[in-house]
């Protein structure tokens, strides 16, 4: 005989069911969609005054933000997560896994996949750029807003670079470059600062090494356009070898040179620069072409003819044309023709935007599933109506 649940057990489950009912409810879907609409409008208006980056961070990349500095308001990330569970709940508790609801189920699954794609893009996508003049090639792209401390040893043209992303470092933090046998302790770090040399008249007692003669950093307010911030840092070099005296090094983001130090008879290079992202291919600009509107200097279109070479499992070499609406896609990377530059002497530079997105195919899968779900759903309804109509005719007969 089946054991009946006790009154206490039923009570315990009651509140959980109420929560699940709310999570799966259409009411929550509508609330989420209204909040998203509000955030889109609010973010667009905010962007006009505070810039794209600030608006993106506050409204679209946050779990919540403070309204008037006091009241917490849900950000897009939180709403998307709630919407994800709402769709998941709806699938389990409102629609159910029945053949008659197959279309509806697939539609919901399609939207869930779209949100999963958004999750991957939010956490794992990387945007960067490469600037090439004709006949020049690279296998690295540069981030627009993120910075790294790059350290390497020796003067070889092909080198192993050890890099640490400096975006979230704090004073006192120790960065250990184990393979190089040294650590860097953050003594000072500024997200945006000015650099001064000795002949600027500002002196300090601290002795710091810098190849360009920079002697002092002065913090200044961070720009709302994050790409314009130039970071700087003073670091203490710590090594396991007692023969090497302790010394400090100053690194500045706009410094045209890496700082070189001789440690234990080897040259060590230290450079604070825009974060480099290794690409899965070597890309060389063969030719940059531009078309103008007739009788004007206004560009109509521009494109880059590039040679790409990949090694490893997908080894290949071929020529590709990247134009404004025809990006190059390779693995998780997409290369867009973003901009260009022509020097007075005629040297042409092509500027390519590089986007790495591991979930780039998910929106396509999602769109197809929603289409398929709608098709099944409406076909099912059509057949059902026809059956009802034919049954009615049968009854009349």
């Amino acid at each position: 005989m089946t054991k009946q649940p006790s009154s206490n057990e039923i009570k315990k489950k009651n509140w959980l069911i109420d929560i699940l009912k709310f999570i799966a409810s259409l009411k929550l879907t509508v609330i989420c969609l209204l909040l998203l609409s509000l955030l889109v409008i609010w973010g667009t208006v905010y962007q006009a005054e505070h810039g794209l980056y600030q608006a993106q961070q506050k409204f679209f990349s946050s779990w919540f933000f403070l309204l008037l500095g006091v009241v917490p308001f849900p950000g897009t990330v939180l709403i998307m997560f709630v919407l994800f569970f709402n769709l998941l709940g709806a699938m389990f508790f409102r629609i159910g896994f029945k053949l008659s609801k197959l279309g509806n189920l697939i539609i919901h699954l399609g939207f869930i996949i779209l949100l999963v794609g958004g999750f991957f893009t939010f956490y794992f996508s990387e945007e960067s750029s490469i600037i090439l003049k004709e006949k020049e090639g690279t296998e690295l792209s540069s981030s627009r807003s993120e910075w790294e401390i790059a350290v390497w040893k020796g003067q070889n043209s092909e080198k192993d670079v050890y890099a640490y992303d400096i975006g979230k470092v704090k004073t006192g933090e120790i960065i250990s470059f184990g393979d190089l046998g040294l650590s860097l302790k953050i003594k000072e770090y500024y997200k945006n600062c000015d650099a001064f040399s000795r002949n600027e008249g500002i002196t300090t007692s601290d002795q710091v090494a810098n190849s360009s003669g920079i002697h002092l950093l002065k913090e200044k307010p961070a720009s709302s356009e994050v790409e314009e911030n130039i970071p700087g840092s003073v670091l203490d070099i710590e090594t396991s070898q007692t023969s090497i005296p302790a010394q400090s090094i100053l690194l500045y983001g706009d410094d045209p040179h890496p700082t070189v130090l001789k440690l234990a008879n080897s040259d060590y290079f230290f450079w604070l620069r825009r974060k480099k992202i290794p690409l899965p291919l070597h890309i060389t600009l063969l030719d940059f072409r531009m078309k103008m509107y007739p009788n004007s200097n206004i560009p109509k279109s521009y494109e880059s003819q590039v040679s790409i070479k990949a090694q490893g499992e997908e080894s290949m070499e071929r020529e590709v044309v990247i134009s404004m609406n025809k990006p190059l896609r390779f693995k998780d990377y997409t290369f867009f023709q973003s901009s260009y530059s022509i020097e007075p002497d005629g040297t042409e530079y092509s500027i390519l935007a590089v986007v790495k997105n591991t979930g780039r195919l998910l929106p396509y899968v999602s769109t197809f599933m929603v289409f398929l779900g709608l098709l099944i759903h409406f076909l099912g309804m059509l057949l059902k109506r026809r059956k009802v109509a034919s049954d009615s005719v049968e009854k009349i007969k």
Partner: protein
Amino acid sequence: MKPEGVPTIMRGAPKRYNKLQGQNMKSKYMKVDKFIILILVIILAVTFSACGKDKGVRKYKETGTSGQIQNTGKPQGGMPQMGQSSEMGMGHMPRNHFKWNLPEGWAEMPNQSGMRLATFSVKVGNKEGICTVIPLQGEAGGLEANVSRWLDQVKSEGTKMPEDSLQKILDKQEKFFASNTFPSVLVDFTGVTPKSTDKTIIAGVISLETSSIFFKLMGEKELLEKNKGKLKSLCESFSLITGNNK
């Protein structure tokens, strides 16, 4: 009568949902419960693991000369986004939005001030002049105000101050186009300073749409006279890194 604590049956819900609230609650409900908790745990784990993805030292290969100079006039790093003018954010203009060809014998020095795009050292024999590149926007970039300020700076004993109005002084200066596009003027004060050792100024001023770029060369009169042509060629080579060079 419905016993207290028993939830209402959800109208329009599938049978399996309503069954949860009846006798089969324990068995079927618990299965769903565990399944949801499992999904929650997986999602939270992925979320938090993703949050910490930037930590740690990365290693990659790079080909190129060690110590290769990054800012050799070749554009690097950040750039204006598509559809944006390169004159965005003129309050602080990133150096990598502009290019120029450095004249022979001139050397770039470390940037000594956040206001400057660049600083160059100009040497002739044992004498040295300094050329600064400063962008200014709005009224701060007004030519007359700056020329007036420079006149005050070069004023010394014996200086022949021009009697003309500022506008007339400016009209007499050499005009040219930077990058064959931007109207520019070369303001030369070597004529007002009598001695070859007097400190004076020659400045190339390039007018952009909403701002001006000042290439200001300061040093002794003799050094400046010898480098006037080079300053002009430096200004002429100035160009924007943008897809909107119209």
